């Protein structure tokens, strides 16, 4: 097992390297140089000179890249990811500050997805062609077709503005910081808007996977042995049906992170996604770079976790 994980980790290195190359190019090929924004009356020429030199306009690109990358991997140093152009804070510090909010949002959405989609999928499969099945399938189709930013916008209007049941922005009310009830109340709308599309996708997948298993020999055998139906369904079939679902986990995590950027922007959720969108608008390059790198890491870690979980869950896979 450890060998397998080590091997997978090793495979992740070139991918992360590639992500680094691409994000570095994204910034460095952007028109205008990154210091344009500093050309204001309040910045002294010598500071500009310093910046120009630091952005290495005088150095070959590959040298710039290596020096950037070698600093970048030293994440134990607070300054390794540079400083935000906007407020001069170390980028790593800003991310560390905001990552928990994003993880909370994404984690809650994932939990909700699992908690809702799996029972729905199973129900639809077990009662194939029933009214419940049709209802679930239709809802899934509609849910899947509503882009999450649109859903977020509508939820904000109806839940927040029209009904006034939920807060319009942020994660905490002023003066109630750290109160879990208050945070939960703020979570409702953004989590729903993130989770609906995932629930739709997952429930379809679970249904298909469950149907496949239900038609397999061992289930028939179990039935033939005279085991009670619920035992057949929930003990034998379910376990096997859920194994492929694990793969979804790895795919869902990064898409939640990417989706979080827009959801956070709509609900002013104080996470890394909102910070990333703001950074793009303000051309805060160090923060933009950081968000891309975090995104890449998220995908790699998500895939790794899914693969490992898959290997653990499915006895047929030999490590």
């Amino acid at each position, binding site marked *: 097992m450890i060998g397998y994980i080590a091997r997978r980790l090793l495979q992740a290195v070139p991918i992360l390297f590639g992500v680094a190359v691409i994000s570095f190019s994204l910034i460095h090929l952007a028109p205008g140089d990154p210091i344009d924004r500093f050309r204001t009356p309040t910045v002294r020429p*010598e*500071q500009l*000179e310093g910046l120009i*030199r630091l952005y290495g306009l005088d150095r070959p690109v590959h040298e710039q890249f290596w020096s950037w990358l070698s600093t970048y991997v030293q994440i134990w140093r607070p*300054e390794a990811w540079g400083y935000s152009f906007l407020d001069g804070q170390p980028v790593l510090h800003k991310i560390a500050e905001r990552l928990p909010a994003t993880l909370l949002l994404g984690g809650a959405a994932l939990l909700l997805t699992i908690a809702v989609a799996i029972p729905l999928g199973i129900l639809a499969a077990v009662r194939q062609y029933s009214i419940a099945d049709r209802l679930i399938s239709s809802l899934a189709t509609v849910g899947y077709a509503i882009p999450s930013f649109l859903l977020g916008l509508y939820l904000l209007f109806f839940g927040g503005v029209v009904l006034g049941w939920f807060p319009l922005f942020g994660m905490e009310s002023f003066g109630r910081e750290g109160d879990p009830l208050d945070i939960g109340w703020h979570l409702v709308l953004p989590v729903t808007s993130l989770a609906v599309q995932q629930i739709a996708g997952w429930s379809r997948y679970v249904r298909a996977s469950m149907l496949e298993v239900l038609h397999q020999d061992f289930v028939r055998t179990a039935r033939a042995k005279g085991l009670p139906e619920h035992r057949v369904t929930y003990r034998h079939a379910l376990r096997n049906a859920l194994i492929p679902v694990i793969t979804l986990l790895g795919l869902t995590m990064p898409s939640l992170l990417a989706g979080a950027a827009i959801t956070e922007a709509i609900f002013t959720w104080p996470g890394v996604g909102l910070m990333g969108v703001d950074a793009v608008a303000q051309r805060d390059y160090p923060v933009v770079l950081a968000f891309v790198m975090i995104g890449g890491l998220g995908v790699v870690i998500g895939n790794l976790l899914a693969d490992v979980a898959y290997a653990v869950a499915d006895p047929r896979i030999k490590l």
Partner: protein
Amino acid sequence: MHRRRWQCAALAATVSLLLSACGGTGVSPSGGATGSDSPSTDPGSSGDPGGASGNRDSITWVIDGQPGKISNGADDDPTADLAAFIYDALHQYNDAIESVPNLAECEPDADELVYTCTLVEATFHNGDPVTADDVKFSYDLAISENCTYNPSICLAGFVESVEVLDDRTVEITLLQTYSPFTTVILPALGIESQAVIQAAYDEFTGAAASLDPGDVRAASDAIAEPAGAEEPDAAGCEAALASAEELLTQAGVELPRREDHTFDGAFDPCSYGGVLSTDLLGVANSLEADGLDAVAAVYSLLPFQRDPIGTGPYRVAEFNVGQSVVLTAHEDYHGGTPATSTMNFVIITDLVAAASALAAGQVDFVEEMTPDAFEAVRNSEGVKIAEYPGFLHLELQFNVREGRIFSDVNLRRAMQLCIDKAGTVDAATNGTALATESETPPASWAFNPDVQGVERDVEAAQALIEESGWTLGDDGIYEKDGQRLEAEVLVRAGQSDRINFMQLFAEQVRECGTDITVNPADFQTVLLPALDRAWAEDGFDAYFGGWSASVDPDPYSLWHCDEVSTEERPETFNYIGYCNEEVDQIIEAGLATSDQDERRELYFRFQEILADEQPYLFAYAPLVRDGMHVDMRFTDGEFNLTSPTWLWQRHKIVIPES
């Protein structure tokens, strides 16, 4: 002192600090350091001491950033907000934005060169009385060539001398007549205690006495040289840092933060060194200079700024970096004991969060709310709103140079007649702005209420166009010599209010046979270069944008013939090329007198001329909204919530206990 008008749009993109200043409340950056007026009074009508019974003993204000140097060196909004509670200037603004007496009453002589200022009885926070010497001292620091105040109140080249006539009287002599001295400098330059600054300075000299100015200058040069070279030499800078830091530390000067000079993870010794070098230069200048010039050179480096001593109604009690500043009442305030004993300033950078805290009753004041923030409080019963057109004004600016399509005054007047301005503004801004007919804020004493807009009259407009020889073409658009009556209007992309206005405008003038294309463009890469090429063959015809006006109504930089932009001077603000002899005379006369009535008359005429000639088709001034506790008031009456300077008697602010 040059009058500066900032193109807000330019700044909004770059200097976030000034962003809120561009929003328009209080004073534009040229208005000086104080974010709005200084506190206080007409002596005598002091708020009743102790604030009577039934008033809360503390009020909580939101500031949106960490305050910096609370002194005449203040250069950002949160600091200026605080400074307004702590310092007094000789004059202050009342809620009509007039410069009225505060610590002193200053009267110019007939030639407007010599101002005689008579001080009231007042004491500093440390108990010392305010004397004529303190006033002279504060002004002398501004007059010095080495002035390190906020640049907008440095006076070298404007003021010749400040003389103490007696303990209560000073005489300030200008080098030439300059009316903004009354409207901008007198209410902005805070009076500080000579003894306090001198003590801080003595501490500095005590520490720095052993230093040889030659060494200091050498250390400064040692950095400036490698840093300023064509190819900055990091190793050279690095090598020079240690001795520079040591010298500054010896002089008792706080070092800049290294993390402010670290980019992409790499510390830049030349950038950091640049600041050290400037500071060292200040120290060296100070060591080499005598008397006040020596103090002025290091003023901004002195450590008194965290514990400022002023004459204002409040003094600093606590300074919690990153969180709050607590002010307590200055019992001996010259306008009477402040009615509320404690003023808390909490730092909340997110204005929406601040506004919802206001709605929840957790704070009592949030200034310059964004539309989002306003939404959070608009239906809240516990909140009242100050709403006033700010100093920002937006308008359609025509390039009136010879040969340009809008050089014809008939066409410009026709454009004005073609639109229903009030309706257009209301629709375009969703009711968040006031339609305007001049650049002068309605609350200003210089605002001419008789300059009124015109009713929409398409026929009259068409008559004007036809008078200039245009004939209506088949497509419903006028033509002359084979040229269609068409023009492109540049507007800043992403600013939906402005684009909305121009779209509504374009459809209305189409009915007058004019084809206007709205072209939203990026400000930095397209608009600014286009404005700088206004003089050229391919220059723009019309631009929809705006300016943040100054407190002083002087229109020199936008409208004087000498400021018309040219190939040699492309960046002047009169890029539309407006030049009118009568206007020039008015501008010059307006600068030569500080008599407010006389100036008012001049600027009234000026506004009439502009309204008649329409070089700008003035559109609207966005409303600024400050939110506050619904019961907040002065001890002797309600605020004038439609004035940008409604908050002018800070010692009388109370919130009655409910």
